[in-house]
């Protein structure tokens, strides 16, 4: 056996470790500081001098945090499923079916990519206010399903379906399967990698939404997590940093754990789509 730890490799490892610090340290600091007494937040210690978990129960006493967690979660799930459905249907039709006006319609849909959702927030706010839907979750669900993130999803799905070999569909057609059947039985199951990437993008987008919740929502029981995180203040209005960090930890860590468990599919799915798109 040859054992070769060359100088070059040592240098590479050194460089990677140094570069890693700003990526890893904030998460480490968030988790450990959430268990520090508030007086220690601005000390340089890497670990708390005494571990306190009372910050975690305080999170739930100061805000309806369980409710807010549920709000964020269920909104993100509905938006993800809705976007996958709309994008798969439209992406398939634009890629595989020839119908009059197709290209024009595709251009119309694509313009959505050029319009950041922030541009249209004033009229949309007006619309939802006139429908009596402010301080409800409707705007956070409906708009993303059809807005710019969905257009990106349609684009990804279309690129995927275009690359699919036509022979599969022709065989199914010979067997008497209609268009909807071909889509549902043949094309959709094959598109799982692309759908996976769409799901990840969409979920994260919804989970991170911040401008829309603070524009539309006004009562704590309706808040989503990003908005709730900024609300942990003491009776004088001063932010309670360690409680904030406990809430932030609870927001971030579950997703990180899921990611580490599924990271291979996760990253490769994204990369795959990126190359194709």
């Amino acid at each position: 056996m040859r054992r070769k730890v060359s100088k070059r490799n040592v240098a590479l490892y050194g460089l990677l470790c140094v570069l890693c610090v700003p990526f890893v340290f904030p998460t480490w600091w968030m988790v450990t500081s959430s268990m520090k007494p508030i007086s220690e937040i601005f000390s340089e210690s890497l670990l708390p001098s005494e571990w306190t978990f009372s910050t975690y129960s305080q999170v739930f006493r100061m805000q309806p945090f369980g409710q807010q967690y549920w709000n964020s979660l269920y909104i993100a799930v509905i938006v993800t499923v809705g976007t996958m459905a709309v994008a798969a249907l439209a992406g398939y039709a634009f890629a595989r079916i020839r119908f009059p006006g197709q290209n024009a319609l595709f251009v119309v849909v694509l313009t959505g990519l050029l319009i950041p959702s922030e541009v249209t927030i004033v009229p949309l706010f007006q619309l939802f206010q006139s429908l009596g839907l402010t301080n409800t979750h409707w705007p956070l669900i409906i708009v993303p399903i059809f807005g710019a993130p969905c257009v990106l999803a349609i684009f990804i799905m279309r690129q995927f379906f275009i690359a699919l070999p036509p022979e599969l569909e022709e065989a199914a057609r010979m067997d008497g399967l209609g268009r909807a059947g071909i889509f549902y039985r043949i094309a959709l199951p094959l598109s799982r990698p692309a759908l996976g990437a769409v799901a990840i993008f969409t979920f994260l987008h919804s989970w991170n939404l911040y401008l829309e919740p603070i524009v539309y929502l006004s009562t704590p029981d309706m808040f989503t997590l990003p908005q709730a995180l900024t609300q942990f203040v003491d009776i004088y209005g001063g932010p309670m940093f360690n409680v904030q960090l406990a809430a932030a930890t609870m927001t971030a860590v579950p997703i990180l754990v899921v990611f580490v468990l599924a990271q291979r599919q996760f990253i490769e799915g994204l990369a795959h789509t990126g190359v194709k798109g």
Partner: protein
Amino acid sequence: MTFWTYRRRDNLVGYLFVAPALLGSLAFVLIPLGLVAWYSLNEWNVLGGTFEFIGGENYKQLLADEKLRESLVATAWFAAGLVVLNLSLALLLAVLLNQKLRGTTLFRTLFFSPVLVSLVAWTLVWQLMLQPDGSVNGLLSVLGVDGPNWLRGESTAMVSVIVVQVIKNVGLNMVLFLAALQGVPAPLYEAAKIDGAGAWRRFRSITIPLISPTILLTSIITIVGSLQVFAQIAVLTQGGPGTSTTVLIYYLYQQAFQFHHFGYGATISVLLFVIVAALTLVQWRMRRKWVLHEA
């Protein structure tokens, strides 16, 4: 012959499949965009309850608005700094991770992990770490450097916002670059080596041209994304100090939802749309010039 030929049925299915996307983008993207254009021609103060047609007055105000000019400057600095730092760091990390080395999967996971940390959580953590007596300055003092009050100095605030955003999201571009690098055929490098090309030369003349479609894709995504950075600004600096980090979108938010000038807010939205559309168009045109081949 029946009326419902396969062709006709196929057309119908096509329209039905695109209908949700099409109606949705009409209702929530295109019609609102038209309304924004209309609102921008009106004086509309929500608190005062006034809504009145004033023609191009808002646009006149736009041209004369000193704060808007400062905001455009801040937006340009932010976008430029973000794109340059993000793409070069992403490429550097991808090249490092593309070496034959044990444990690159672990490093890939670590570099990617901030992408998944909730945006506001990430920003809150950095806000605390960037305080004068926070961890960043603590680390710098170990190295013998006396760190500034990052979020309260005009240039350091901008640098902080850019760096926090780059570290958060560079993992996405890194993954895209990594996939592109792995698609470059190895024989090309070997042939160049035989011809005596050094590492830098091989990188410049083989790698860069071959991954140029990915460079285009990531730069479009990153530039357009940089114009939508809101939560980071709102949490870290609230646009300050002064107007040094008041990027366009934050200025739009202030005008429309803090000062309740919906008409003027809509005018800024129109400007934002024009900028995004122009940038995308320019980049799309440029692909012919410097992208070697389409992906």
